């Protein structure tokens, strides 16, 4: 091995990342090349000097500046975390209803929170309560994302999905997942009216108008849907 090659491989050699055969050749070169030996030794020392240098304490003035800035954000952060706990379930379920895909819904939920976090003033408390507003922007984003996404049925095993469980006041998350699976298996016209009734809170009359079907048809679809859900759940 030549001196030039030793220099090129110096870093890998010092970091122990050199191929063992080459490392052996390099070590043999060092045995009788004093100059390369000195370069290896002094480079090693250079690295150690910098690596071992203790950082100086933060100047007081700068520590105070940083602490003040962080303290200013603490209340904001705590408020945000509360908000997250309170509304994550709602936002997730709205997104899930549009997207029918747990991962995609979670992405949308994250986006909604990020937007709120970056720009908390985008919500105008004068205009109404937070929940309906969040539902509207979530639906909006979910529809956007649906346009972009190839539809894919996904699992709903995610931390956010669990929050929906407590919202729906189903006893266990396993039960909830099962119910959701069963819902998915219902005939489309039954699933649609059940969702409108229980997730969107529409009255039977409103549903009838929404799906352009006679009231009696809507009622019997709801009854049939509920019956088969109950039958499957108790099976």
């Amino acid at each position, binding site marked *: 091995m030549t001196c*030039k090659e030793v220099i090129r491989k110096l870093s890998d050699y010092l970091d122990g990342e050199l191929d063992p055969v080459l490392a052996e050749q390099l070590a043999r070169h060092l045995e009788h090349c004093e100059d390369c030996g000195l*370069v290896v030794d002094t480079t090693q020392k*250079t690295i150690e000097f910098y690596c071992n240098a203790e950082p100086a304490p933060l100047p007081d003035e*700068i520590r105070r500046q940083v602490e003040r800035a962080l303290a200013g954000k603490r209340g904001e952060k705590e408020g945000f*975390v509360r908000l997250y706990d309170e509304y994550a379930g709602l936002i997730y379920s709205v997104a899930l209803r549009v997207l029918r895909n747990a991962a995609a819904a979670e992405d949308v939920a994250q986006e909604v929170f990020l937007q709120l976090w970056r720009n908390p003033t985008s919500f105008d408390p004068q205009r109404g309560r937070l929940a309906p507003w969040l539902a509207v922007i979530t639906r909006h984003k979910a529809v956007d994302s649906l346009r972009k996404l190839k539809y894919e049925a996904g699992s709903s095993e995610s931390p956010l999905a669990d929050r929906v469980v407590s919202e729906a006041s189903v006893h266990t998350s396993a039960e909830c997942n099962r119910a959701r699976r069963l819902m998915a298996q219902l005939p489309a016209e039954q699933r649609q009216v059940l969702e409108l009734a229980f997730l969107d809170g529409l009255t039977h009359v409103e549903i009838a108008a929404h799906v352009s079907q006679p009231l009696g048809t809507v009622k019997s679809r709801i009854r049939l849907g509920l019956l088969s859900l109950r039958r499957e759940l108790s099976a």
Partner: protein
Amino acid sequence: MIAHLENEKALLAEARAGNGEAFATLLNQYDRRLFRLALNITGNQPDAADALQEALLKAYRGLETFRGDSRFYTWLVRIVVNEGLMNLRRRRADSWASLDEPTEADDHSLMPREIEDWGDNPEQRYSKTEFHAILNQALERLEPILRIVFLLRDVEGLSTEETAGTLGLSVPAVKTRLLRARLELRERLTKYFKRG
């Protein structure tokens, strides 16, 4: 070390849940190092302070996005580096090129010029203050991108891959810059540390 990491995990969970005290405690063990890093990137205290402050605010806000698949410290380092570089680029629009591409070094310029024995403990010939001034001065004179690669790899202990990811460089690019940085520093320090 394990106990330390367990403790960090617990503090992180608290900080994520909005506990500002926990976040401050987490930072206590790192802020000196992070400030030194910012200082070495921006080159002056006021800019380093701004970069550090901005980075820590971002980290605090974005704690939810820390996925825990890298070390917390590495994650912080990345944010500080980004802020530091942004600061540097804002101030020195002309230095874009030198930040991204170091001037080409051929094998010839890599070859050591000063080859002298430093002897054992050459640092003992200087006072602590003098010694640190020598180290800092040599570091300051490196091209920015060489300096930053050296800092991340040899001072902050990031892996080659982590350094590449942080700076948006390829692994071979990190390696060649690191080699140049080490050799150039060695060259400058030799003036002070050679025997006799």
